[in-house]
């Protein structure tokens, strides 16, 4: 029941409509003492924790997600202040000093052109994170809009949008990205566009699915009843309810975008040499795996750690958003 068993007498004398209702209820034979309207106790009305605060608490309790979050924070700092942290110029070759084993001078060793691998890994952080974030932003924006329209409108609009998405999904995304790069030309900005475009269907699908279930809710019908326009219903009533799904998908999406960037770099389609990029570093050193394994190990570790961090954070966010998965 929604109120405590003993409402204080006279709690509502100044509210005539309530006593009237109580009287009417009495007249209808309900067991309400005269003049007492069931008042909800103040203890039931403590300001409960904010939804986002609750989520944040759940996230803090997840150790893997927190470690990942700190690591991502660290990566962001490295990306921003990278140029002050590099002991050597990451694009300066030194032919007298090629393929040196890691040492006090060159922490991660040097590559076949004598460039400092540590400096290059640091410089590559900025590229990977920027491409990852920008590509996801493009995919998210377009995908959410398309998915929202498809899910909310339904009918032939839905069919047309989703069949196009299916066509894009039928081709492996990296192959599609390579094809796009071939059409757009080399360069990091083109890589952002290519990776962004190929990941649109994932977001469109997930947003459409979430819209399909949310729009059936009575509160969406209620929003229509009070005379809201479709755009307002989509953005104010439906979208905020699917935000958790979008945030989780977006976080996981950054990791796959980082991976795609590395793959394009590995194939020599990302950054232009001599600029440093993790995938490009792997690609150039792949013939040296037995001679100089450190030339592959460190950029490879950077990719793995970054992808893992975003994946773990995404998983943590998913658990934090799901009240049922929260451990008391």
């Amino acid at each position, binding site marked *: 029941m929604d109120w405590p068993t003993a409402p204080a007498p006279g709690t509502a004398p100044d509210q005539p409509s309530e006593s009237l209702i109580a009287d009417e209820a009495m007249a209808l034979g309900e067991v309400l003492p005269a003049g007492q309207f069931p*008042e909800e106790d103040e203890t039931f*009305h403590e300001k409960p924790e904010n*939804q986002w605060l609750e989520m944040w608490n759940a996230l803090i309790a997840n150790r893997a997600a927190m470690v990942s979050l700190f690591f991502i924070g660290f990566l962001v700092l490295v990306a921003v202040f990278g140029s002050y942290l590099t002991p050597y110029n990451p694009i300066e070759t030194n032919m007298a000093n090629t393929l040196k084993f890691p040492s006090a001078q060159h922490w991660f060793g040097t590559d076949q052109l004598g460039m400092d691998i540590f400096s290059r890994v640091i410089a590559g952080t900025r590229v990977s994170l920027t491409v990852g974030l920008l590509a996801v932003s493009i995919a998210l924006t377009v995908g959410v809009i398309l998915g929202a329209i498809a899910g909310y409108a339904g009918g032939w609009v839905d069919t047309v949008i989703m069949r196009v998405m299916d066509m894009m999904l039928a081709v492996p995304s990296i192959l599609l990205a390579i094809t796009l790069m071939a059409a757009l030309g080399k360069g990091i900005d083109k890589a952002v566009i290519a990776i962004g475009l190929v990941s649109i269907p994932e977001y469109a699908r997930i947003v459409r699915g979430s819209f399909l279930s949310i729009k059936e809710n009575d509160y969406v019908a*209620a929003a229509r*009843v*009070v005379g809201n326009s479709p755009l307002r219903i989509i953005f104010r009533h439906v979208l905020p309810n699917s935000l958790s799904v979008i945030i989780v998908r977006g976080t996981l999406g950054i990791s796959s975008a980082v991976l795609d960037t590395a793959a394009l770099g590995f194939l020599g389609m990302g950054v232009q040499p001599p600029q440093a990029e993790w995938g490009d570093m792997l690609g150039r050193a792949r013939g040296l795996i037995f001679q100089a394994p450190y030339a592959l190990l460190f950029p490879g570790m950077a990719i793995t750690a970054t992808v893992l961090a975003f994946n773990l954070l995404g998983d943590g966010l998913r658990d934090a958003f799901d009240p049922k998965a929260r451990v008391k």
Partner: protein
Amino acid sequence: MTDDMLLEVRDLTTDFEMKRGTVHAVIDMSFSVAKGEVLAIVGESGSGKSVTSLSVMGLLQPPGRVVRGEILYKGKDLLALSKHEMRDIRGNHISMIFQEPMTSLNPVLTIEDQLTESIRTHMKLDKHAAAARAIDMLHLVGIPSPEKRIKDYPHQMSGGMRQRVMTAIALSCDPDLLIADEPTTALDVTIQAQILALINELRDKIGMAVLLITHDLGVVAETADRVVVMYCGQVVEQATAAQVFERPMHPYTLGLLESIPTMEDTEVDEPLYMIPGMVPNPLNMPRGCAFAARCARRMDRCVSEMPPLYAAEDRKLRCFLFDPEAGEEARS
């Protein structure tokens, strides 16, 4: 007479085009609601009551479609309005409350957001004035300390409270007509009584008309002025509430009323009355009267012909028993 009519529905027919055939959810439905009147539409699940209300609001989702008829609101045909004009009618002139208070409020918006939304849209008030009106509305529907509760999210409220908030939202722009689609079905009895009392009280205060959709005859008895009984998308009896409860005439209405358990004059061993048989498949409706197969007073012509809506005494009845041309012997 017609001048007093707020809403007049004439020959409304709503179809659902399904892959397996067309379902006539509402067939030639006609009724009217006068200013300040409570009209109840009664019927069992699937009888077309909710489709009727959605048709009036213009909120039918495909494959549902109004194929015929007129819905006149203050003499204006709502079916002829553009989407934009219809949005102005909704919330501002005709409002609606739903069955499920637990899901009818958006979980991510505060009560204030949801209340002020329609106020700002329709009444063109600024933020402060809208908030003040929202608090007044919460006060009106009997929510204690509305200044505090207005900042709440729906999950902080009980079912009864939420239905009050829903009512407040529906009434916030002073609609002339409130459509209440089973407003009390999901609530327990004490709260039910409060909400019904509230609707009655507000009707007296504001003078709005109410179109009450329900399957609960108890609710009808407490609130309605007039009653439309629906069966399989058709009106089978239309009369004042007093007439229906004192002397139900259509065999279906009779059956409905007899199916209600009563405290008095029931032998302990006697099982509760039940209308025999089942509602016919909507895709395969019988040629004659939809109720014929279940009717205790079925005649031969009931199976082959659809009875029209006869005006008998001062009510309307869809049954050959009341055919003025039929002999007296048919009735006995």
